């Protein structure tokens, strides 16, 4: 019943307008000079105290990037990005490193509070012993700009054998694992933005779940951009060994800004035999103002490899933020009977542009995939689903089901569906359905006749439209996501 309670509270509490999370903290920053060159990459590598092989890896990616062109096939428009006009490294000034949570800057703790990080986690961040915290546990690896400053629950995780740490730390502490897996799902030269990320990534998370281990808690990272003209290049690598399970949550909010900021993350997931990875995202970067000024450019490469038999990777995303979203969380289904899932809600309002979807590459026998995509366009925005389902000759008896629904609110926006279906195995089955609709006048009237305001009615109907996706989210995210949907669509009716 709690979820319903929360839903109702959420729907009713939506009265504020504007971007609720648009504040800035005033922590002193340490910038690298603007621009990108081998020297900057060397500087990043040195600051991160990286081994030589990592530097070489970065330089190789940089060399590949120099030869690549920015892709323009997506339905997004933006002024040219000057890659030399960005800072590629920014870190909060170190005060001998936050070894214990007491040393965490109080400004930062305040920020978590504003971000809505649950009380329990704030208590933990404030120094409460994790073992005394009952109920559902959530470990937070908070990325503040480019450097992880606090990691909790380490003890509990260590006991289970789980490694959950900033990737920079993993490069130093677990070089063999990183070397073995980094770049194997998203190669350095995969695409323009992935190459850029490979060259300059400054931080992100590393997760390793050993064989047969069910991760004792949800892993959650809150990313946040907080410096003017700072590119964000997170790199996340999650490895689930045979028979292991992990659920990873990622949430984003960013402060209000006038200048566009570039975000180009790479996430790689690897699932071995019988392993399961659930990766959930609520993306709420600053979308720009009502006139389309400002906002984050979000060019993300997310891909999972189901390497083992019966392995499963499930992506769930709720995308409400960013001026531009360019993102296709994908699954490469090598393993026999492996499973890939993609559940997505993408909301665009005002002048936002989203071009998002997935790729399901079926290689293994009996592999199965499900794609459920719900796109909601309002204002002057454009929202595109772009997806690929590919059945390779070996994918005997593979299955895909795709359902893509678009909802238009107002007559100044666009909703587009661009699916690619390619099959080279006669026993593989692909089913694709797509619909486009608007909120029916009689639905709105019915709700209003029962006393709901027009905005509440829209929010209720939109949440209903997205239900098949929202129910895939872990509870605490489902609530935030519903709130975000309502906030994102404010002012879109009437």
């Amino acid at each position, binding site marked *: 019943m709690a979820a319903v309670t929360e839903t109702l509270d959420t729907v009713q509490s939506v009265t504020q307008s504007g971007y609720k999370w648009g504040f800035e903290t005033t922590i002193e920053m340490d910038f690298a000079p603007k621009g990108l060159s081998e020297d900057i990459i060397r500087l990043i590598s040195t600051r991160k105290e990286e081994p030589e092989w990592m530097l070489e890896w970065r330089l190789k990616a940089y060399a590949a990037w120099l030869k690549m062109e920015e892709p323009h096939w997506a339905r997004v428009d933006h002024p040219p990005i000057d890659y030399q006009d960005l800072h590629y490294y920014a870190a909060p000034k170190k005060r001998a490193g936050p070894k214990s949570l007491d040393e965490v800057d109080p400004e930062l703790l305040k920020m978590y509070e504003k971000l809505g990080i649950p009380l329990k986690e704030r208590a933990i961040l404030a120094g409460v012993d994790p073992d005394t915290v009952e109920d559902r546990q959530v470990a937070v690896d908070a990325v503040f700009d480019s450097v992880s400053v606090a990691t909790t629950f380490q003890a509990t995780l260590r006991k289970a054998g789980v490694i959950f740490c900033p990737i920079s730390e993993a490069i130093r502490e677990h070089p063999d694992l990183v070397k073995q897996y980094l770049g194997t799902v998203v190669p350095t030269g995969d695409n323009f933005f992935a190459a850029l990320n490979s060259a300059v990534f400054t931080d992100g998370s590393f997760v390793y779940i050993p064989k047969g281990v069910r991760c004792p808690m949800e892993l959650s990272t809150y990313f946040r951009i907080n410096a003017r003209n700072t590119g964000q290049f997170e790199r996340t690598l999650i490895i689930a060994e045979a028979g292991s399970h992990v659920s990873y949550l990622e949430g984003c909010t960013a402060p209000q800004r006038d200048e566009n900021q570039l975000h180009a993350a790479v996430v790689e997931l690897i699932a071995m035999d019988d392993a399961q990875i659930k990766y959930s995202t609520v993306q709420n970067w600053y979308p720009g103002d009502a006139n389309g000024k400002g906002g984050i450019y979000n060019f993300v490469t997310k891909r999972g490899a189901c390497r083992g038999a019966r392995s499963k990777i499930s992506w769930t995303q709720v995308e409400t933020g960013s001026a531009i979203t360019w993102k296709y969380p994908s699954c490469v289904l090598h393993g026999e009977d492996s499973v890939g899932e993609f559940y997505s809600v993408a909301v665009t309002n005002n002048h936002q542009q989203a071009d998002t979807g997935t790729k399901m590459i079926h290689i293994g026998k009996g592999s199965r995939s499900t794609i459920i995509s719900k796109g909601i366009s309002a204002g002057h925005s454009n929202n595109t689903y772009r997806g690929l389902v590919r059945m390779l000759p070996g994918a005997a008896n593979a299955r895909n089901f795709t359902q893509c629904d*678009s909802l238009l609110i107002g007559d100044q*926006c666009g909703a587009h*569906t661009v*699916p*690619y*279906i390619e099959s080279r195995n006669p026993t593989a*089955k*692909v089913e*694709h359905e797509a619909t*486009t609709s608007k909120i029916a006048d009689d639905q709105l009237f019915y709700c209003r006749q029962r006393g709901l305001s027009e905005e509440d009615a829209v929010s209720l109907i939109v949440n209903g439209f997205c239900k098949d996706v929202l129910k895939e989210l872990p509870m605490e995210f489902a609530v935030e996501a519903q709130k975000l949907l309502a906030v994102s669509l404010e002012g879109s009716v009437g």
Partner: protein
Amino acid sequence: MSTGASGFLERFEGVLGKLPGDSALRAAAAAAFRASGLPGDSRGRRIEAWKYTSLRAVADAKFQREAAPRHEAETILAGLPLLDAPRIIFVDGAWRDDLSAIAAAGFARFAQQPDFGTLTWPDREPMVALNTMLAEDGAVLDVPADHDGGVVQLVSIAASDADFHPRHSVRLGRGARLTLVEISVGQGTYLLNTVAEIHVAEGATLTHIRLQDEAASAFHVSTTYADVEAGATYDSFTLNLGARLSRTEVHAQLTGKGGAAHLNAAQLLAGSQHADFTSVVGHTAPGCQSRQTVKNVLAGKSRGVFQGKIEVARQAQKTDGYQMNQALLLSPFAEVDSKPELEIFADDVKCSHGATVGELDAEQMFYLRSRGVPEAEARSILVRAFLAEALDAVADETIRARLEAAVEGWWERQAA
């Protein structure tokens, strides 16, 4: 002798000024073609519209400069399932008075009445640019307002190993009706690159049936532009059976309130055939309807492609668009590629598409076999049923029967 794009361009230099019509327009098309090259040719640019179809083989082929028939057009003609109706016959791209039988007025030759029309986009479509460069002949059909033009057959017979670029124009006046049956056949290794411009004025109905049964080593490219005005209907059905490589491209624009466009097709492929059916339906006026069912049956190492796009402009409220693409893979070496696309800018619309890919339904197979039907026969029954659904879109029973006969002929060829 050069091949590929440069071969065509050289030829163009040679005939410039000798061809009918506006030579400036031809020169502009040549410039566009020079820039684009042939889709899929390594020398050309990569084009999203040609993602799944490469004309590399066309680029590598050596076509004769002049038509030099190596086959008897009359013999080929005798084998055609023609209807007892007016026929306009082109052999190797040129109109043949002796073979044609035109009772109705309103026919002219492009060679005498060259009109490139206003709907085509040579700067966007490389093969339209190529046609605009080299078109020599074609049919110009005018059906006056409120007139029923009955059935007219437009036949292309290829008898030489050359390339042909027919240019057709079909105009239906207000409230006019016409059933146009377009048949293309031939023998040898040739390229047929047709462009047709179709105008369906207010309240008029054009039924456009196409049977493509080209020679096994032929290349067939056909691009149609249809402009459908208020309350008018463009109802088309394409059956692709032949050619080594075919590309059927249809652009239908619904420009008046209450217009309708039906772009149905079936493709049966075997061996190493490649057939690409690409369509763009543009809803630019409110209250229009578009319907599309495209079926692919793929045997051997064949590859079937469907690209379908429904575009709904901001002002095209109350649009009703539906698109269905189904493919049956009959062999482990066949491939299907499908891209059903929606581009919607109006909110009060009903647009949907579906796509299914797979083999025959296992339960249906089992059901038939449990009733004693041998596997091969059960398979054939179900494939025919699958195709019959597509052919149901052809309302005229006589024409549908001819198409069904052509499908039977295809099966017999596979069995042989």
